[in-house]
Every structure is written in C-alpha cells, then in structure tokens.
C-alpha cells in the first residue's frame, strides 16, 4: 500500500489520537496493531465478541488512509468465482461471434490445413485474458493502483477450503488464476480479517496474520466511546449506563450486550429524555440491550438490585 502521508502512521500514539478525531476510540493495542500492519505489511486477524467494532475498525482505517474499502462478506459455500474472479461469459460469447466473422480474413490464401492451423495460432487468443476477467473483491484489492483496505468479514463463516485458498493471498499478496497465471498485487493492500470464533481457524492462516483480540472495552474506554458517539448525553447518566452494562456483562447471559448495543441504548434513553436510570425505564428498554428472551427473564428480577449497587 502506498501511504501518501507517512506521518499518519509514524507511531501508534498518533494513530490512536487521529482515530479518536475520527470518532473511533481505540485502545493502545489496537493502534499498535494498525501500526504494525502498515509497517510490516501483514494482514490482521481481528477476533472478539460481536459488536466491539471489528468491522468498524476496517472502515475507519480506510477513511483514515484515504484508501478504498473493499469488503468481502464470507458465508458458507463462498468460492473463488465469487471471491476472486469470474469470466464475462456474455462478452466471451460475443467475442466468438466476432471471431467467426473474421475467420475468413485470417485464413484467406492459406494452403492446406497445417498453414491454417499455424495462422490460427499466430492470431492472438484473448478468449481467456484480462479483458474478459470480471474482478471480484479479492482481485479488485490486488489490482487497485494505490492500494486498498481489504476487509474479509467473518472468515469463520466460510469453508475451510476457502481458508486454504486465502493463504497465498495473505502471505505473498498474489493469486493464481489457472488460465492466466499469477496475478501480483499492484500495491499491497492492507488486509483485515474478522472472526467471531464460531469455529477455530486453521493454524496456517493464523500464522500469517497479526492476531488482535478486541475485548469488551473497560469502563473508562466505553464511557469515552459513548461521549463521542452519543452527543448531548449527561455525564452522570453516561457513567450509570457504563456501570450497569459492566454489571450485565458479568452475568451469565447467552449474549452479553456489546458496545453497539450500549450506544443504541444510550441513544434511546436520550430520545426518551431519561435523566436518571430507574428500574421502570430500564425494564422498558431492556430489549434494546438483550436479544434473547431467556436473558431478559434472567435480568428483569435483578434490575432493582443492580441499580442499587450502582449508587
């Protein structure tokens, strides 16, 4: 990746500060990971519970570096024709039509079969060539002139074979297309992979990446995130929200509330003009935080006690 503004990635601290300016509050280790990814030209594998801003990190990185963000969502059954390249069949068909019409000109005056074949061979064959190649996300990322930020989202959802297919791309920034040969990156992209850990990824993949684990943020960090994301939120209410969320995360829930849910909740409370958390409002808005009925049933009787412990 050609980074036009080297001073932007001069140190992890600068990255951390500038990201904050863009509205993404990150911990020092996240900034260090970005710094290393830029300097060592290595992909980052980002793991962590859902909703801690893994995908957001890639988006903000693309904005920060003024690079296009190329996103590839993984799912079961994803294969290379959807991820890497596809032939433009329609155009290829037209091409054969055109070819047929020109065949007469090419072969005119040829004596015998041998010469005809020889002429045919001399005639350029572009049936399988760059012109008819429809680039998919991975190839796009390799072909972009000034580099790009390639986000391979939820890699754990893709099949294991696909993971193996990615290895070449991740270590050498190149891919092999059987009909054409090896396509090397014009300028190495910054690659970010995210995983929700629904299955253990292969060691080979992990070995090629920096491994960043983003946990739920601590109270101070989360409070700062809320401050930037939800404008006009009262400081006291903010502290209460963060403390309550922290308590909820300690409970044995099926799905703990993530940062994105905290933000949604804070916005909702702001919209409802709630000035202080009380058990009525918490009960009313609990479904914003907890996405399973079991969890809601578990938390509801505890609300009063939880709120009391906050004070």
């Amino acid at each position: 990746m050609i980074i036009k503004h080297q001073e932007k990635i001069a140190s992890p601290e600068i990255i951390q500060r500038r990201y904050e300016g863009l509205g993404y509050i990150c911990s020092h280790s996240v900034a260090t990971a970005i710094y290393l990814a830029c300097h060592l030209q290595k992909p980052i594998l980002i793991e962590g519970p859902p909703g801690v801003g893994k995908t957001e990190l890639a988006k903000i990185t693309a904005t920060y570096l003024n690079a296009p963000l190329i996103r590839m969502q993984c799912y079961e059954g994803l294969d290379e024709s959807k991820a890497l390249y596809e032939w433009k069949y329609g155009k290829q068909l037209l091409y054969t039509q055109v070819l047929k019409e020109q065949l007469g000109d090419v072969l005119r005056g040829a004596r015998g079969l041998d010469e005809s074949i020889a002429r045919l061979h001399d005639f350029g064959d572009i049936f399988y060539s760059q012109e008819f190649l429809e680039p998919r996300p991975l190839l796009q990322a390799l072909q972009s002139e000034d580099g790009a930020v390639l986000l391979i989202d939820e890699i754990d959802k893709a099949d294991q074979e696909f993971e193996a297919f990615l290895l070449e791309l991740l270590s050498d920034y190149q891919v092999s297309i059987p009909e054409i040969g090896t396509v090397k990156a014009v300028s190495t992209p910054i690659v970010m992979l995210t995983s929700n850990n629904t299955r253990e990824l292969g060691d080979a993949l992990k070995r090629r990446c920096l491994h960043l684990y983003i946990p739920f943020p601590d109270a101070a960090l989360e409070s700062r995130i809320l401050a930037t994301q939800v404008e006009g939120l009262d400081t006291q209410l903010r502290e209460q929200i963060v403390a309550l969320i922290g308590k909820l995360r300690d409970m044995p829930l099926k799905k703990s509330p993530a940062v994105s849910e905290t933000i949604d909740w804070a916005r909702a409370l702001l919209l409802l003009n709630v000035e202080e958390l009380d058990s009525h409002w918490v009960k009313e808005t609990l479904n914003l935080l907890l996405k399973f009925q079991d969890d809601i049933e578990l938390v509801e009787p505890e609300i009063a006690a939880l709120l009391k412990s906050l004070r």
Partner: protein
Amino acid sequence: MRFVADFIGALREAGLHVSPAESLDALKAIKLLGLESRQTSKTVLALTLVKRQADQVIYEELFDLYFAGVGKAKTSIKESNKASNKEADKSESESSENAQEAKNNPHSSQADMSDGEGMQTSPSSSLGKALSKNKDMSLAITQAAIDEKLSSIVLFTQKNYFAYKIMQRLGDDLLSTEIRAAANSPEHKRKQRELIKSRARLLDQVKDYVEQQYGIFAQHKGLKYREEYLQQAKLSQLDRLDYKLMQRLVQRAARKLASQHSRKRLTRKRGQLDVRKTIAANAAFDGALFHTRWKATRIERPKIVAICDVSGSVSRVARFLLLFLYSMQDVMPKVRSFVFASEMIQVTELFKQQGIELALEEIMKRWGGLSTDYGKALAGFQSQALASIDKKTTVIMLGDARNNQGDGRTDIWEKVFRQSKRVLWLNPEHRNSWDTGDSIMSEYAPWCGSVEPCRNLKDIERIFSRLLKYS
C-alpha cells in the same frame, strides 16, 4: 533480541506453538517499536506470537515473570555504570576492568587471583573483591545461569543443584578457600565475617534468581508432562484431582476433532443444472451447450446420537465418558445425548443449558450409580429416539454391557443397527473382561459396526477421529 529469543523459547516450553516465521515477525516488530515501553512490547509480542485466546493467559503470566527479570538486570547495569562513574579515585583502567569482570567474571577469576595475592586486608578472590565493593551481581548471575543452561530446569528438586552450579561459576570455590584461610589468622577475623555475610547474601540472590527462572521455564513443563501422562492413564485410575486437567484435555481433543471434520462435503452424481457453470464451460463452443454442469456439492453434516451408561458398574469412568459426551455436543452440531442406568433420559437440553460442571454433577446425582437395566433402557430409547434415526445417523454407545442378568433386548439394538448409518460401541473395560460375569457384550456385538475398548483419552481421541473421518 536475545531476550526475545529466550522468551519465545519459554513460550514454547509452556505449550504455545510459535513458528519460526512468527518469531521473525516478532523480532521485526520489536525492531520497529523497541523494547523500551513494557506495555508496548507486551502488545507487540502478543500481536505477533499469541494466536489463540486460550494461550493469552499463559502468555501474560510468562511475560510478567520474564520481563520483570529483564527489567531488574537492566537497572542493575545502569546502577553499576553510575557507581563506577562516581568512584573518582578509581583509575580508568580499573573501572573498565570492573565492567569486564561483570561480563566474564568466571573466566577472569584466575588472573585476578594472582593480582590480589600480595594484598592482605582486602579480599583476594575476584568474587570476594566484587562482593566487598558491594557490586551488584545480577548481571554476573544471569551470565552464569546461561552458561549453566538454567533454562533446561524441569523439576523443583533441581533448584538447589542449579543454585550450587551457579555459585561455582561465580567463583565460590576460591571465595570459600579464602574464608577458610582467613579463619586461621586473627587479624583477618573481621574480613572473614564480612565475606561470610556477603556470601550468604549472594547465595540468597542466586536462589531467588533460580526460583524466578524455574517459574518461567519449568512450571508449565511440569504441566506438559502431567498431560502426557493423563492421556495414557486408564480412565478408571484417575482421581478427582486430575479431573480438572482432564476436562481441559478432553475439551481440547473434542475441539480439535470437530474443527478437523466440521464440514464434510459429499459429491453427488446428479443434482440441479448449474446454468452459470454450464454457460462458462461451453462459451468456447460458440454457445452450443456440449457439456452440462451440475450443482455438485452438498454439505453433509454428521448426525450423532450418543448414549452413555452412568450406572454403578461404570461409575468410575462415567464422569469421563460424560465429559467427552458434553464436549462433543458442545463443539459439533446435531448431537443428541442420552444417559441411562435403567431409564433412558435425553440430556441434550440439559447440556445446552448448563455449564459442564453443573450438568455433570446433576446427571451423576440424579441418575448415576443406579443398577443397570439395558433392556429397559433400550425400550425407552426405542420410544424416544428410534424414529429419528436414519441412514445419516451415527449411534455411539458408551457402556460396559453389564446387564445384571436381565433381558438385553438385543432386538432393539438390531433395529438401531439396521436403521442407522453405523453403530459404535465403546466399552471401558479391557477385551479380556468382556463376557465375564454379567457382561453380555457378545450379544450386542453382532449389531455393532465396531466394538472397541476405550480405556484412556488416547483411545477416545483415536476412535472419534476415525468416526468423523468416515461419517
């Protein structure tokens, strides 16, 4: 760089898989950001070396231990530099000799001996000199420890041995001789007392150092040995203490198996016509469709029904069988779990809702240890689950086939066998004990795809790996 390399060695000893490529990455990253800030180096090394969340804890523990040591060594170097600068009366050459001494202490001791021979009041051995000047010895200790290969320490009983060896390296022999010699002449009494004191201090320091290094290199090594032992130990001989460790091993094994075999694809001869692929394949033939392409792959997931005997006769191994059952269900989709003594009970939901400890506790409390009745249990199985068994299902039975002389209802087992894809019977007893006493293994055996003894974790792992490969 040396510190980093050593640290990687320690990580490997603790059971983390750090490849050479990753070590190189770590070194490159450290070169970029330096080792000055402890927090930064911790992050950097974690990013490049630790790829599994489970390893994070071990990593942090080791990092703190290890770099506490490094920090100490660094500050002591700084201090000794300061000290030598302050001592104005010392000549240039002497202070440089001091620095030299700190590095090559053990080797220079001979030469120093001859130097100091004439002096009476100050100690003559180099170690004695160094001690009487109150020099910080930690650097010399580190060097001596490297020479003695302290990092190979395995057992706590070796601690004293290594402490002794390091003292020897530092020149303790000569010092002791000197102390003994000084005892003979009364005017050297004071000097002797001081030397004895400082020697004791040094010994303490060495012991502390060995202790710390033991923490880094050996603690987890011990665990590794223990795990290896557990994998081969008979299930029936394991006690409650090992249970915790076993739980981890079993879960790891189950996860490994599941991730290796989580998705199985089955190629089918005919299916839907894949229009896109067909056009692609025939584009070269002027669009005339010569070759047809079919949607050929279908994702096939193994369906497993696992039944576990928890009655009195298998009570000693039941916990471990359950442990594996739980882990299997945890990591694989479509596993239905049953337990029985005399009644067949489906525990799939219980496993889903409860943590492993609670679930096992509850099962053992409610159904464990009762007398066995395979006939009744199988009848229960027939009414609950037989209908759902089809040609994609693998049935696994974990039990000893000891039926208290009752009717075994092999007819049901035959039905299970005919309806399912395969039936696997894992018997926790040795082959020799089958069909002895009330065991009716041979009555069930014809209706099992395979009957295997399963007596330790290695067995279980092997059997399941095979099972998953062919399912």
